[in-house]
């Protein structure tokens, strides 16, 4: 019996976990923010708009890519994964899934730490702020907070 089958068991199917809905909505929003930056990286959006800060400086810095891969693409992928996890976790047979909960926690924590590192670079190394990166950092932080109830779900299933 796999993890998901365990989570369903014979208990009545409860309401879908609200926190996973929140994660899905936030991840979708974050996906579009990252997609905008990635479109810029691909040259589709022209020079970036910056009402506050200086995205052009951030986006043209050496920290805007990891090897040949734009950081924004990492963001796009990350948000897609979180969105997919949240969606799967909302299916009736996965609503109590420990695996989904654990992945959401790890994914949002990893994304949050990576985002914190990027924010540190903006503040202390590049000395320029890109508001889209800041919005993304806020979104991933909120996703992490929205994933915290998964800890209780993990503990409940463990006990």
């Amino acid at each position, binding site marked *: 019996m796999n993890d998901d089958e365990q989570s369903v068991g014979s208990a009545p*199917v409860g309401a*879908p976990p609200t926190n996973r*809905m929140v994660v899905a909505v936030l991840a*979708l929003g974050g996906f*579009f923010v990252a*997609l905008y930056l990635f479109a810029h990286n691909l040259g589709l959006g022209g*020079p970036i708009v910056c009402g506050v800060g200086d995205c052009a400086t951030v986006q043209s810095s050496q920290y805007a890519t990891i090897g040949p891969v734009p950081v924004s693409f990492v963001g796009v992928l990350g948000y897609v994964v979180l969105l997919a996890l949240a969606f799967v976790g*909302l299916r009736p047979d996965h609503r109590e899934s420990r695996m989904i909960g654990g992945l959401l926690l790890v994914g949002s924590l990893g994304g949050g730490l990576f985002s914190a590192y990027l924010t540190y670079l903006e503040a202390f190394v590049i000395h320029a702020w890109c508001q889209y990166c800041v919005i993304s950092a806020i979104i991933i932080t909120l996703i992490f907070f929205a994933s915290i109830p998964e800890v209780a779900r993990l503990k409940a299933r463990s006990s």
Partner: protein
Amino acid sequence: MSRSEERRKAREQGGSDMTKFYVILAVVAVVGIGAVGYSIGSTALGAAATEPIEVEGLDDQDMLVEMAQGVTKGDEDAPITIIEFGDYACPGCGGFAMSVKPQVELLLVETGKAKFVFYDFPLTSIHPTSFLAARSARCAQDQDKFWEYHDALFRNQTSWRLEASPIAQFLAFGEDLGLEGDDFEACVKSDRHADVVSANMRLGYELRVSSTPTIMVQGNGEFLMLPGATFPAIQAAIAQIEESAPADAGGAN
């Protein structure tokens, strides 16, 4: 309440929550697709060249000098040439255009003492729209409105320099100046003049231009790169060149 009823109620509640969730998700998706689509669509520069291009032959100094073309204001035969390597998105160049250039024009160019030559030097790494601005000014030059357009770009610099795609503003400046709309728009949205702007940039690099505005004063065989873009510095350079002239002339005789 029986277990089956609890289950039914939970399913109904869950179904209602999921419906709300899908509605919210759909709203976020529509807004997101709209925002990204609009930003890409509205800022898409199409075929408009916004970056320097590779121009063959610029390694050859003679070819470079031929390809690079400054725009001259004043008497071509004036004894002194004041050269600016400028970037339309550079605030320093904006300050020079608004405060120093008018003095240069009034006291030096209009008196026939000097001519003023502007070379494009868009610092594209920090000013992503400046290459497009330089090309747009060259498009205005096609209709003999370079200097009017040049001044409009600097005068309105704060309105466009941080825009993702200032094409709309650039076209509006042209319209204000009475430029033929279709020709001007087609030019701005193409790669026309990208070669000249790129050649000017290359010439600037060859002359060790590293910042904008960089001012040079030339005359009587002297070529001075000024430490500052101020009117007193230009006057001092001209004085230095003029002082050297009689001696040179005497030597030649």
